[in-house]
């Protein structure tokens, strides 16, 4: 349903690792009530790339139990297996190799190595080690990172395919807390920079796009909205609006200097 179109037909596509996508909104598949809600929300979001986690299978479970892959067939969506929940480079690399095997050799992955269970802040030392190993092993690595421009540059030099700084803590909905650091990362990056984590509502997504981000990745902001499907639609529109505003180029800010939009002449009684 949200399957990618041929690159040649796309206007202003998001290009990641040589593949073009129509949508600049990437979504997670966690925290929904059930797979129907997952699917409805993701279709409404227009997202083509969806993140999934790799976890131990329940053994001896009922074979007819529905699975995420039935709700979101890999033929219709680009899967982005993640290493969420991993705290070392080794765990993350093993997890993403399993994800690649699970998805028949699919090279695209989201690297995430956490450093703290309370803040879910990334451990950048482990992230850098894992990124080097994964790139050497042929993966296309989209990497979750702190909003440190020096680390972002190192990840780019290692050969990642997208830099994904947090806007605020994972699942916090606190929005874009440090647009200035995002700007520093955006100014130097030659790769797509996507905000990953922290978006709470539609305006946050628009702000990320207006800053010049190539896209936004979110999960909780949609899944934990009162009406996830409606919020998914709001996020699609917000990402599109923010992108259009970025491309259009905003007017300069004029502090304490008003400028009327209507003619100053030709007023009646003049």
């Amino acid at each position, binding site marked *: 349903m949200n399957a990618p179109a041929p690159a040649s037909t796309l206007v202003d596509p998001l290009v990641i690792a040589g593949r073009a996508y129509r949508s600049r909104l990437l979504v*997670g598949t966690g925290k929904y009530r059930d797979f129907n809600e997952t699917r409805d929300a993701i279709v409404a979001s227009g997202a083509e790339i969806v993140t999934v986690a*790799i976890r131990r*299978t329940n*053994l001896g479970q009922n*074979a007819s139990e529905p*699975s995420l892959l039935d709700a979101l067939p890999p033929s219709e969506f680009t*899967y982005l297996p993640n290493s969420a929940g991993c705290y070392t480079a080794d765990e993350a690399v*093993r997890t993403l190799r*399993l994800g690649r*095997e699970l998805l028949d050799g699919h090279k695209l992955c989201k690297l995430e190595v956490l450093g703290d269970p309370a803040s879910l802040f990334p451990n950048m030392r482990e992230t850098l080690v894992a990124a080097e190993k994964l790139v050497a092993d042929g993966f296309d690595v989209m990497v979750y990172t702190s909003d440190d421009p020096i680390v972002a540059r190192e990840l780019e030099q290692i050969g990642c395919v997208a830099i994904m700084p947090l806007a605020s803590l994972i699942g916090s909905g606190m929005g874009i807390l440090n647009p200035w650091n995002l700007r520093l990362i955006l100014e130097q990056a030659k790769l797509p920079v996507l905000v990953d984590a922290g978006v709470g509502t539609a305006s946050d997504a628009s702000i990320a796009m207006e800053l010049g981000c190539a896209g936004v990745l979110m999960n909780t902001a949609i899944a934990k909205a009162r009406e996830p499907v409606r919020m998914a639609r709001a996020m699609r529109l917000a990402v599109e609006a923010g992108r259009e505003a970025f491309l259009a180029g905003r007017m300069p800010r004029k502090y304490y200097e008003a400028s009327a939009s209507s003619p100053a002449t030709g007023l009646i009684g003049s």
Partner: protein
Amino acid sequence: MASLTLTVNGKVTELATTSATLADVVALMGLEGKRIAIERNGEIVPRSRYASTPVAGGDRLEIVGAVGGG
């Protein structure tokens, strides 16, 4: 009774057989036809090799699938 003791997803699991392949284990676990990936003693075994990969007592298997996540 002869048996084969494996650790599957962190749990000690006893199979009532002395020889088995990874494909046998997958069938015994009710995972046939499901989209899974398997690590045997830390090394990934490609799906195409399940039937030709024997398991031995003491093997550690990790069997994973895709679940919802961000």
